[in-house]
């Protein structure tokens, strides 16, 4: 007991009651108190002194303060002593749990909408790509359609030529230089139109530096009717050349790109006289 009274005298029990000790010090006090009734008694006396001291210095709170407080409490049980029906007030402890659920739900919703948004965004991008692809395709069809229309119109023109006596169909044959070459020239004596039928054109390939030039022989002299390429990107069937009113013959020579003033006779690939 010697030990206990020295411990009591040290003043550590007062510090314990005043909440002045560290956790290990508190454990030590609690350990000693559990072992010594003397220490327990002393502790209780200190506690009661401070308790009574506080009670002596009590200050009555405002009326209805408890009602305000009660609204913030979350009763789990209530005895038959009914004090006040629990008010469902937002700030209460009770609302904490639903609030947590609500928060969790919000977060979940946020995540879901985030995913949905990303999803929608990527699908939108896909849709845009598809639209662009479809538009490109549509344009291609439209241009294809135009080509077909044009081709059709040209075929119609060719077909009409047969019925129109003004149109002369002049097949040009290969020369010594190029025996395999052949070509078709449509010439309207009345309207002076001259057209080449590309579908029935068979001339040797030429490089970029050269072009074929169509000539009409008028009164024994060559007259330039324009240049053309063997290969053209356009699907055009008929090539409209310069107009000529009279012609004894048609000839095609290979000339430098842009054409020449006079035909280079040794480069003549096709020729045909026109029967009058």
């Amino acid at each position, binding site marked *: 007991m010697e030990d206990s009274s020295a411990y009591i005298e040290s003043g550590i029990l007062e510090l314990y009651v005043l909440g002045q000790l560290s956790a290990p010090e508190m454990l030590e006090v609690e350990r000693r108190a559990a072992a010594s009734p003397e220490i327990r008694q002393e502790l209780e006396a200190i506690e009661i002194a401070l308790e009574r001291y506080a009670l002596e210095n009590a200050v009555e709170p405002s009326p209805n303060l408890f009602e305000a407080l009660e609204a913030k409490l979350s009763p789990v049980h209530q*005895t038959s002593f009914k*004090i006040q029906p629990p008010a469902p007030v937002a700030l209460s402890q009770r609302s904490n749990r639903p609030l947590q659920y609500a928060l969790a739900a919000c977060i979940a919703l946020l995540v879901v909408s985030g995913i949905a948004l990303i999803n929608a965004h990527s699908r939108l991008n896909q849709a845009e790509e598809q639209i662009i692809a479809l538009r490109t395709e549509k344009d291609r069809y439209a241009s294809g359609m135009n080509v077909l229309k044009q081709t059709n119109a040209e075929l119609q023109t060719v077909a009409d030529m047969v019925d129109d006596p003004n149109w002369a169909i002049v097949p040009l044959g290969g020369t010594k230089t190029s025996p395999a070459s052949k070509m078709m020239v449509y010439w309207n004596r009345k309207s002076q139109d001259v057209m080449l039928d590309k579908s029935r054109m068979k001339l040797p390939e030429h490089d970029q530096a050269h072009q074929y030039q169509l000539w009409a022989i008028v009164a024994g002299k060559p007259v330039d009717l324009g240049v053309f390429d063997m290969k053209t990107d356009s699907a055009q069937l008929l090539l409209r050349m310069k107009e000529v009113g009279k012609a004894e013959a048609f000839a095609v020579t290979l000339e430098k790109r842009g054409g020449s003033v006079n035909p280079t006779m040794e480069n003549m690939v096709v020729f045909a006289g026109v029967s009058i």
Partner: protein
Amino acid sequence: MTTPAKIKLSEEALVEALSRRDIIAMRALYDMYGAALLGVILRITQHTELAEDLLQETFLKIWNASDKYDATKGRLFTWMMNIARNLAIDKLRSKDFKNEGKNQDIENNVAVIDNQKKQIINIELLGLRDLVSGLKPELASVLEMVYYNGFTHVEAAEALNLPLGTVKTRIRLAIIELRKQFN
């Protein structure tokens, strides 16, 4: 609204009801100790409205932390009083309170320890019957510092320029004095 009669329960019944989270425990605790706790808080904060807010906070904390109370480690009131004191002292030291300017400068106030002046203010403000003032000044000042001003006993020893052992002894003697006065 009719004020129901004040409820009193034995400490065992209180603890038991509190552990069941029965609201009657709160009513009883409030009726029995609310005013005592408010006295402690008011003594620390010197501000009635704030003190009542803190009293509510104290009871909320008691309610929410009731499972932390261990009857083998001390009386229920001691536990509650330490909750109240800590909340009040934390509030005084908190930034938002200082910013409110309600407390000019608690640190300075405390450091100066114009004990007499402080007690006069307390009595004027609160009309308290202050038992500490009945103590010898050297005992009262130490108890005042650790009980109301949030000093640790180590800090109090430094502020008063006293050995730690002396401070501990003075706290003990002050409380012994209080014990005598109640007996």
